C-alpha cells in the first residue's frame, strides 16, 4: 500500500502520468490545466521523467503531435480545457478512427463566449459523439486512479481516453492522495506494444480516403470496437481493485437502496450533493445519488439498474444545449430511460455554470422541487437554475 500524502491534485495527476512511463508529452497551456503540464515539464527537465516534452504552439498542434507520436508507437499524453479542446476538435475523431491509445486530461472549464476560466462541463459535452472513452473524477484520489486506468484501457482497446477533472475545484485543491507504488504501476501497465505502427520495417498507410464504398464499414468497425471497450473498462477497474482495494464502477450510487427520488450528477458536485442527501435522509426523505463515472461508452445497463425504483430523477447538468430537449446529461438520461421499461419523472436543471456555487441548500431545493414534480409535471424540459431574474 502506498502512503497518503497531501498533494495538489494537478501535481498528483502529473506524477501519475510520469509513473505510467509516458514517452511523449505534447501540450499547450490553458487555465486551469496549467499546473499539470508545468509539473510534467519540471519532471522532464530535472531528469526525473524520461520523456520527450513538446511545447507545442497550439492545442491543435498538441493533439496532432500526439497522433503522430502514438502512430509511431509511443505512449502519449496531453491535457487541455475549454477553448483548447474546441481548437483541437478536428483531431479528436481522427485519433479515435486511427485507433490510437492517447490519454488526455480535460480540466473542465466553460466555453466562450463569454470567456470564462471557471468550471463547468460545457467543454467536454461538445465531444460526446467523437469516439473518445470518457471518465469523470469526483476528487483527487479518483483523478489519479483514473489516469492509471486510462492508459490500461486505452492500450488494450486501442482507443483514446479522456479523463475529466473539474477545473480549479478538483485540479487546484490539495487533497490527501495515495499514489500507487511504481512496481504496482508497472504490473498494471505493461509496456506499449502496437501491432501496426509507423516504422520502415513494416510500412502501412494511415489515413487513406474513406470512399463511399468503405466509410460505412469503417464507422461500423469503430463503433463495434467502442462498444466492446465497455468490458475492458470494467475489467480494468476490477484488476485495479485487486491491486489497491479501491473499487470503481461505471455508475456510482449513494444511498439508493430505497430511494424515491435520485439526483443524477457528474464530477465534483456529487460530493456536495451527497451532503444534501444525508441531510434529507435525516429528515426521513428517501433520496439518493446516481453518478456517472464512465460517460462513454454510455453505461446503459448500469444506469438503469442504479436508479432502482425511483419515482423521479433530478438530473443536474453543468452545460447548456440551447433550445434542445434538455442539458446534455438530461437528453441522454431521457433517451436511455425511453429504451427501458422504467418511467420515472425526469426533471432537468442546469446548475453550476462557470464556477457558480451550488451549495448543499441548493441541492436540497432541487430535491424538493423534484418531489413536487412527481405529482405535478413541470412545464419546462430544462431549467437554468440559480439565475438572477
Amino acid at each position: 500500500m502506498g502512503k497518503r500524502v497531501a498533494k495538489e491534485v494537478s501535481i498528483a495527476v502529473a506524477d501519475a502520468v510520469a509513473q505510467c512511463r509516458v514517452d511523449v508529452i505534447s501540450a499547450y497551456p490553458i487555465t486551469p490545466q496549467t499546473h499539470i503540464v508545468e509539473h510534467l515539464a519540471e519532471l522532464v527537465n530535472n531528469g526525473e521523467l524520461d520523456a520527450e516534452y513538446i511545447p507545442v504552439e497550439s492545442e491543435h498542434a498538441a493533439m496532432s503531435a500526439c497522433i503522430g507520436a502514438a502512430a509511431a508507437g509511443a505512449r502519449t499524453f496531453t491535457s487541455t480545457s475549454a477553448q483548447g479542446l474546441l481548437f483541437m476538435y478536428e483531431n479528436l475523431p481522427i485519433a479515435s478512427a486511427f485507433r490510437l491509445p492517447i490519454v488526455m486530461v480535460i480540466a473542465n472549464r466553460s466555453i466562450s463566449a463569454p470567456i470564462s476560466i471557471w468550471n463547468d462541463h460545457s467543454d467536454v459535452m461538445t465531444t460526446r459523439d467523437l469516439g473518445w472513452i470518457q471518465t469523470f473524477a469526483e476528487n483527487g484520489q479518483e483523478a489519479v486512479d483514473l489516469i492509471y486506468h486510462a492508459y490500461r484501457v486505452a492500450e488494450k482497446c486501442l482507443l483514446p481516453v479522456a479523463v475529466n477533472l473539474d477545473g480549479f475545484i478538483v485540479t487546484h485543491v490539495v487533497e490527501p492522495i495515495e499514489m500507487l507504488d511504481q512496481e504496482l504501476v508497472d504490473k498494471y501497465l505493461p509496456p506499449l506494444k502496437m501491432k501496426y505502427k509507423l516504422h520502415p520495417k513494416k510500412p502501412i498507410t494511415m489515413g487513406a480516403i474513406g470512399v463511399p464504398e468503405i466509410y460505412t464499414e469503417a464507422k461500423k468497425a469503430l463503433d463495434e470496437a467502442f462498444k466492446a471497450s465497455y468490458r475492458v473498462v470494467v475489467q480494468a477497474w476490477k484488476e485495479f481493485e485487486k491491486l489497491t482495494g479501491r473499487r470503481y464502477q461505471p455508475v456510482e450510487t449513494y444511498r439508493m437502496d430505497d430511494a424515491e427520488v435520485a439526483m443524477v450528477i457528474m464530477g465534483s458536485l456529487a460530493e456536495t450533493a451527497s451532503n444534501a442527501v444525508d441531510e434529507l435522509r435525516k429528515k426521513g426523505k428517501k433520496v439518493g445519488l446516481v453518478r456517472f463515472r464512465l460517460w462513454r461508452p454510455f453505461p446503459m445497463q448500469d444506469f438503469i439498474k442504479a436508479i432502482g425504483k425511483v419515482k423521479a430523477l433530478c438530473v443536474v447538468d453543468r452545460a447548456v444545449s440551447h433550445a434542445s430537449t434538455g442539458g446534455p446529461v438530461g437528453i441522454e438520461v431521457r433517451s436511455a430511460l425511453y429504451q427501458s421499461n422504467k418511467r420515472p419523472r425526469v426533471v432537468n436543471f442546469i446548475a453550476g455554470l462557470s464556477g457558480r456555487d451550488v451549495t448543499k441548500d441548493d441541492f436540497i431545493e432541487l430535491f424538493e422541487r423534484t418531489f413536487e414534480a412527481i405529482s405535478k409535471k413541470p412545464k419546462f424540459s430544462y431549467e437554468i437554475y440559480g439565475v438572477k431574474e
Partner: protein
Amino acid sequence: MPKDQGLMSWKELAPGMYILEPGNSAKFKTGDWRSHRPVLDKEKCIKCGQCYLLCPEPAYEPNEEGYFICNLYYCKGCGICAAICPKGAITMVLEEA
C-alpha cells in the same frame, strides 16, 4: 442496396482502416487514361535515363540492355518523356481507337 455497395465486410478491415499492403496501387491500371503513347527509337537513345527519372508515374523501367522501356499499363500519355529527351528519341503517337 446500400450494403452491396461496400467494398468489403467491416470485419475484414484492418483497425483504423489502415492499408497494410504498401504500394498496392501498382495493381491499378492508369494506362487507359491516355490518348497518346510514347514510342522509342533505340537508334537515337543514349540511355541517359531522363525519361525514366522525369516520368511522374513512374511508368519507365530499365531493361537488361540499359534502355528504359515504358510500361503501358501505367502510362498516361502526358508527353513529358518525348518533350525532354535530349536526342528526340521518343515520339508521341495517337493511340488506336
